[in-house]
């Protein structure tokens, strides 16, 4: 047992880093959550889920972002964001999905997926599992991500938002009225309030997928992807 006690002591310096990165984790979660809020708003605007008059221009990420001013939609998104914030901070969710659903048929027309990867501890864990030899390499890559400045993160987010905006050029025109659903892929042990229910993944039938850019903070990596149905004409 003295051996185990000793090894525990050895972990003290190692623990110092996680403590600091825990603070970073909090800030990073905020960045990620904020990004989701703006992304959802952008999608709602760009895909015409709500009329353009309901949106107001706000300066964010060095861009003119559009945020809804409709009180109902605002509070709806706020309710989602409140829970998302908790989950992201706790590292409980791995995916966020905004599904654009036809109002009449309930058919999923579009599916915006954001994969959240928790870096640092989690990333190391995953890498080590694959090949044991890579163990030494992993901390280095972990170090690299630590150096990222706020400006860099912002410009990465800016690029994604630009892509979301630009995606209307290739996404098919949504015929008829649509609404949206927000899904999350949560861990099994996540605290789930009553407002959230188990759901199917709401995949798009015969989907074409386009991967958009990703951004990463010191603690999170977010990949963006949009899936949409090809038009029947093709």
């Amino acid at each position: 047992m003295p051996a185990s006690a000793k090894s525990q002591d050895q972990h003290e310096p190692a623990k110092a880093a996680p403590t600091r990165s825990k603070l970073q984790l909090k800030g990073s979660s905020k960045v990620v959550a904020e990004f989701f809020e703006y992304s959802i708003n952008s999608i709602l605007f760009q895909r015409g889920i709500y009329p353009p008059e309901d949106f107001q221009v706000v300066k964010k990420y060095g861009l003119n972002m559009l945020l809804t001013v409709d009180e109902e939609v605002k509070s709806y998104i706020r309710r989602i964001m409140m829970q998302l914030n908790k989950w992201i901070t706790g590292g409980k969710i791995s995916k966020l999905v905004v599904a654009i659903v036809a109002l009449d048929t309930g058919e999923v027309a579009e599916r915006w997926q954001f994969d959240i990867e928790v870096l640092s501890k989690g990333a190391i864990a995953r890498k080590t599992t694959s090949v044991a030899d890579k163990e030494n390499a992993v901390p280095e890559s972990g170090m690299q991500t630590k150096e990222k400045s706020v400006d860099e993160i912002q410009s990465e987010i800016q690029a994604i938002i630009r892509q979301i905006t630009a995606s209307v050029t290739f996404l098919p025109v949504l015929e008829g009225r649509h609404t949206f659903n927000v899904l999350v892929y949560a861990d099994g042990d996540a605290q789930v309030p009553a407002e959230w229910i188990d759901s199917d993944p709401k995949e798009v039938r015969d989907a074409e997928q386009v991967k958009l850019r990703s951004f990463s903070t010191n603690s999170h990596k977010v990949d963006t992807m949009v899936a949409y149905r090809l038009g029947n004409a093709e």
Partner: protein
Amino acid sequence: MSFSTPIKSRPSVANCTPSRPSYQQPRLDSSPLTPRQYAQLTSSFLSGRRRSPAAAQGKSCIHRQPSSPLRLDSGHPESALTGTGPVSSTPKKPAKKQLYRTSVQGDRFIPSRSSTSTAMSKLESESKASAASSDISSSSASSLSYQPNMTALAYQSSVAEACGLALNTRILAFKPEAPQSSKPIDLRSQYNRPLKPLANAQLRRRLPTSAERILDAPGIRDDYYLNLLDWSCNSQVAIGLDRDLYVWNAETGTVTNLLQTRPNTYISGIKWSGDGAYVAVGLSDGDVQIWDAEEGEKVRSMTGHAARVGVMSWDRHILSSGCRDGSIWNHDVRIAEHKVSEYVNHQAEVCGLQWRSDGSQLASGGNDNLVNIWDARSSTPKFTKTNHKAAVKALAWCPWQLNLLATGGGTYDKHIHFWNGTTGARVNSIDTGSQVTSLQWSTTYKEIVSSHGYPDNNLAIWSYPSLVKNGEIQGHDTRVLSSALSPDGSTLATVASDENLKFWKIFEQIGKKVSSAVGETLGSGKDIAKVMMIR
């Protein structure tokens, strides 16, 4: 991930999973760095992020030990493992106990489906993930109570494993319905939409084609050289109709006949004082009278001019009057000897007279085609301009650029010239194509409006300094004699020889709701502040 789990479960756990022996070897041989990483891992696992079946197996091994005495020898020195993978949350003492127990009996292993299943471990970990190992018996007891579910869960987990699905993640949807959009949206109309809403059609300024209001002005003298219309700062429009002076209150719409001159005379000039309380009236016989508009009585008469007084201009207490004989008199209305100075340069009737807003310069125009700019301190003109080829009646100082003066010439001239009052230089010119009868700068826009006589009889709005004609209004049938701007700058009043007094909302502010001066009550009838003492 799966191979790392045995360490995670307990420090003392031997790797008792027969199905994964190949993974164990590298771990044992790995560098000293490895265990530490595992420990990190372990803590993250304990926090409940992710649990793998193998982890569970390892753990369940321990818990099941009492009930499954038969064990396979894993073939590895377990003590080596034990020492390298501590769990911070595990109390040292129980760990020691466990270590001891493992080394004693962990040599054979008969896999038991129920004990090695993911579900089993899941249940256990949920019931007490970080349970002290001294609680083994109670923990296993609690897991036994889940027995009926366990087989189902075990089946589920093995199926999920076979399919490569992560059983531990749930897909959750936010249940409440998203609010419906208020109206159907056609995205196509949105693609061409500017990011910021521009001034839409309703907000764009449009020049009126018809007058806001038309009043009769019967008997107005069709004389270019007279100035018979003025609008006071408290929204009273004074108009001279031959012998009568009428005051029309733009706020209330009431009309009063302020005065009637003696027979054989007529009103030739009207000017409101700066405070709007008094109106100066020039008569055809050379008399200059000051009337109190509120009381409706004459305050004083300032005689002395030899001929009719066609134009006047106030600078606070100084009233300057231009006479047909070409003289300009400055009257100090406060003192008995009212004539304080005389400007003599014009050879013919003075028909345009305008003090600069700061009172430092006076511009005058005459029938001798001259424009004079006088310094208030000197009785000789600072500049004399001979560019106009006809009488100059229209004079206007720019409200936003103090030294800018606009002058308009008569029928043979048709030009508006712009002057720098400081240097005397001509800075701009417009050929309007018509006799210029009056000029008014806008206080809202960078524009100037000119009224015209022969041949077009129109109103023209010019932007300055671009000199682009922004609009034209064919408002009157005959020539426009005079114009006056409302105190809020939105409305222009014009009177023409067709005996109409018309009001045009040409400078209305867009976006802001400007209460119109015409026909609207601005509120409390505020008392007219009489700034001056007139004897």
